[in-house]
């Protein structure tokens, strides 16, 4: 009985662990903001707090709605699908409470945008990391 439970646990662990590298949240290399915890990330990406702790408004970047990295990011952060997150954002957008993060075509452009914008924050697949940006959180 115990053996079987262990096997199931192992299976669940295997199924749950992403086969690709994790998702990292990045900012401009010169941005001195401290690492973000889960709550701060949720507040930022779910529109509850649009500011960095220093009071500057964050320029939030999102990936393409079809992308795997966006799917993984929201699944790991809030346990929701892209459609569910969109339904949530539609509510905030169409009631005028907040605007969703700006969508950038791909990880390369996200990196470029963050290098060029001091207040930008985005997420990419860990394996796509390059110089000029700083990791402030891992989401996996």
């Amino acid at each position: 009985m115990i053996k079987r439970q262990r096997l199931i646990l192992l299976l669940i662990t295997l199924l749950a662990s992403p086969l690709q590298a994790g998702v990292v949240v990045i900012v401009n290399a010169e941005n001195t903001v401290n690492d973000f915890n889960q709550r701060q990330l949720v507040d930022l990406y779910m529109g509850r707090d649009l500011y960095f702790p220093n009071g500057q408004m964050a320029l939030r970047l999102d990936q393409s709605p079809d992308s795997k990295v966006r799917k993984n990011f929201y699944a790991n952060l809030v346990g929701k699908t892209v459609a569910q997150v969109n339904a949530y954002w539609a509510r905030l957008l169409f009631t005028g409470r907040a605007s969703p993060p700006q969508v950038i075509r791909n990880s390369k452009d996200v990196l470029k945008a963050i290098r060029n914008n001091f207040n930008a924050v985005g997420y990419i697949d860990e394996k796509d990391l390059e110089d000029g940006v700083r990791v402030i959180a891992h989401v996996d």
Partner: protein
Amino acid sequence: MSLNRPTSYREISQLPLILALIWLTLFPAYSMADDFAPSRFSFNGFATLGAVRGGSEALGYRQDIAEDGVFEGDWSLKTDSLLALQFGVRITDDFDAAMQLVYEDRAINGIEESLKWAYLRYRLSPNVTARAGRIGLDLYMLSEYRHLGFSYLWARPPVEFYGAIPLEYFDGVDVGYTTSLGVGTLSTKFFAGTGSSAVDFVDSGDKLRVDKAIGATVSWETMHWQLRFSATTVEFNDDLQETFRTDDFIMGLLSAATLIKTQTPFDWTDAEHIADQISLQDVTANYYAVGISYDHAAWVIQSEINYYDAEDELFKSYTGQYLSVGYRIASTSLYGLVARGKQLKSREKVPPLPAELAPFAPALDPLLAGVQALYDLNYIDQHSLSIGFRWDVRYDVALKFQWDRTWVDDAGGLLWVQTTLTEKETIDTYSLNLNVIF
């Protein structure tokens, strides 16, 4: 669309809307800019293409008080379909303006009715914002997004709760304060202004006007939970008498009473009492609502209760409730919904004509029947059970099917177009909706 009624201009005028909806549905586009520079202007929208079959011979289905009804055997594409466009402009980081137009089937359908909100907003601090202009009325959980089908499970907000509130927006100001509290975010809001709404009551030109609306909302939101409470006080404009045609009835009753008093030895004392009851002057009311929702993993549960507290004899105190339970399986959700709306006092009956006034019956009975109809039109006692599913076809398109069974008590219909006096009925409504955001 109706087959047994002649095609009106109003029906034809809906065609562009339906075509636009089909186009948007076939080619949903994501309007977010690829460019990373924060854009100054924004344009977004949402749309619903809905087919509905429902109603009975006496009760016409509608989802908005400004609409025509769908009667037994009819299918309608226009009743549930709508198109909303939203424009925003960021003037500075702290100062922006926004406007939302919702185009749908309405009795009166101009820019004035389509403009759901248009306001200037100033962010005084990261926690405090103030708005002025036309603003969505914050009365319930779906405040400012009751038309946004993509954001909820159902084909439409529960009628027994939402159907009794004809006002959606007001012209005035609001101030909101948001702060972190415990594991969640606390938001409070105060608002004040005046309001007006198109209603199709006696005829399609009717308006419902509120001279003063003052209210407050408190809500607390965590990752999975939302709790909210709102309280509002409203003062209706005296042209309510005109909207409900009570002026004519009052005049009829009082002149009949005077005539009887002068021409006969009798006195019709009921007339004055009835006239007093149906008078709609200085009508004020208080409105309270509490709501709770839970959204985590597979479960989406939501419930709201409202209480409309009125002194008036025609608009009696009322309460509406619903409970919705949804369960997600991959990209589909199954849900069940129970809802109930009921006035807290029993149905008003016009006192019969006293025996000594029997000779006047041919003249007075139609008048009394008219008053009874007025009471009944405002009487509410119905409940319903709904089952449906939602399928997220894509990240911006959802398809829904919903079946409702509604039990309407004698004269107790809420929101239906009532053509005649109605008796107890059970009505099934079938809805198929396609919701898109762009």
